[in-house]
């Protein structure tokens, strides 16, 4: 028996109305999808396609106009189920006068974490997001990336089974982005379900097992990345570049003879991200870092 899906949406619709109850925007127009438990699921789409609206319905903040929605086997508006969910909202969501430690302590109380547990987790999370040194500054002064990291910490305080991240990498620098992606993969490796939205395709490609593509409130495609992207009718072959150009010509001639078609020849290119990270990491090792401190991959309490 397979696990039931963490989230199941059936013919979900949302029409925003104005003050006079007149329909104004059809933000979501009948979408159905299932987020399998223990997987990373990406909701992809351009701005305004209805991603955030869908997520807010999953959290019970917005109410669907029609359709069914099951979240961890419960209705989205059930209060108790929220203690198993972590949510990173899309935009500003922090009390500007609180410090990171105060912010996390506030949310810990909302999760009713025992005091000692809360203190422990807050320490670990501040360490993990690399903001332990800024713990006593009001978050209103923070850059967007720093605020985003606190949002992330806040979403993980309760060690959630289902993590919902709305544009998690928006506003982060490449290291921050990489860290978030590693974090998502680490969470998934521990059997957690992650639902994330993004319009940054490279980010989604790196972490998601399954994606759904949303446009104008409709689902255009969904499935596993392998199923959607693999070109089964083509094959790539990679081998060390021969010292003698003649060898290569020989190989190509053999391929042409066997396949009856000219193969494409090219040098594989390293992706920019690992290259960039490598360059920066090398520089950081030589000199003192001044910006965000590179942080631990996953807080210990999340690894248990």
């Amino acid at each position, binding site marked *: 028996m397979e696990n039931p899906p963490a989230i199941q949406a059936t013919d979900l619709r949302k029409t925003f109305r104005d003050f006079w109850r007149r329909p104004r925007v059809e933000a979501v127009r009948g979408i159905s999808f299932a987020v399998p438990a223990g997987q990373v699921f990406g909701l992809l789409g351009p701005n305004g396609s209805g991603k955030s609206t869908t997520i807010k319905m999953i959290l019970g903040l917005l109410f669907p106009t029609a359709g069914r929605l099951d979240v961890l086997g419960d209705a989205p508006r059930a209060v108790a189920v929220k*203690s198993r969910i972590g*949510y990173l909202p899309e935009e500003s969501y922090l009390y500007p006068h609180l410090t990171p430690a105060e912010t996390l302590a506030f949310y810990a109380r909302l999760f009713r974490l025992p005091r000692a547990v809360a203190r422990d987790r807050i320490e670990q999370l501040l360490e993990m997001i690399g903001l332990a040194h800024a713990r006593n500054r009001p978050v209103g002064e923070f850059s967007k990336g720093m605020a985003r990291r606190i949002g992330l910490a806040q979403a993980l305080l309760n060690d959630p089974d289902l993590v919902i991240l709305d544009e998690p990498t928006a506003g982060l620098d490449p290291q921050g982005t990489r860290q978030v992606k590693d974090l998502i993969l680490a969470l998934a490796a521990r059997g957690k379900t992650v639902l994330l939205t993004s319009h940054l395709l490279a980010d989604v490609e790196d972490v998601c097992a399954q994606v759904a593509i949303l446009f104008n409130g409709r689902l255009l495609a969904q499935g596993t990345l392998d199923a959607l992207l693999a070109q089964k009718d083509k094959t790539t072959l990679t081998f060390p570049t021969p010292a003698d150009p003649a060898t290569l010509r020989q190989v190509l001639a053999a391929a042409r003879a066997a396949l009856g078609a000219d193969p494409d020849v090219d040098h594989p290119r390293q992706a920019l991200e690992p290259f960039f990270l490598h360059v920066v990491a090398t520089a950081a090792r030589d000199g003192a870092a001044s910006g965000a401190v590179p942080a631990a991959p996953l807080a210990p309490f999340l690894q248990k």
Partner: protein
Amino acid sequence: MGGAVQFRAIARLAALEAIRRPVFLLVSLSVLVGIVALPLLLNYTLGDSARMVRDSALALYFAGGLLLAAHAAGEALARELRRGTAAAVLAKPVSRATFFLAKTAGVAGALFLYSLAAWAAALLAARAGADDLRLDWAAEGPALLAVTLAPAVAGAWNHRTGRPFASAAFFLLLAFLLAALAVAAFFPTPLERLAFPANFAWPLLGVGLLLYFALGMAVALAAALATRLPVTPVLLLCAGLFLFGLMADYFLGPHLADSCAARAAYALLPNVQAFWLLDALDGGAHVPADYLAAAAAYAAAWAAAALALGCASFRRLEIAG
């Protein structure tokens, strides 16, 4: 109970947020400076200055409080909804009712602190202006010092630490006014040589408490309205309704016998008149305890009804943040 932990956390933050808003400091500072300045303005001018100082101080307190109640309660919800913090909080295992009630309680708490400061200022001003021809500087001096020193010290602290100025100034105002009260308590009044506790007009506190009950009703109403309306209409509706409630006897009284609508309006309107007992102070007597209890019960029932409506409305509100 876990719900109590959440309630306290949200209420405490709501109170702090309200106090940190510059408007809060602006209004409370104006009211407190106004109250403290009353003896300077009114003494030596007409007879009966004692009564005028006392009545004006309470009127200032109530008007400022009404403004703060409506504004703070409106902002507590409207701003959180706009800023997205409400979405973040309600994505946690926090029920809508807990959120709404805790926010309202927090604003009522902030207003209580404002009331403490205003009552202290009113006691000091009433004592300083008790005599038509002579200022009691043992009360007026510390009071003036408190309201001028607090913003200055808060400014210096803000300059040094960068922490919010508005809340620091407010808390210092409160602390300094209470300290001024303590200082004044040591000195007997200049004419009759009355010593503590007779050197203050304590019955004033009873009327102040009654007015605070009315402000509590205003907070509840404003919070309920704020689930559907932006801050400005909340402010106008709330202030309008309470001022009308103050004059309800005058407008509706003559029609109560023959008009159902008038009777209904009279029953539903906040009966602010019941809390406006300034004339009772003339005899120097305390407000009777059973009157206080009855007024508290009325205010609680009225506020509970407003909060129930607000809760129901908030439960069905979509958090678009």
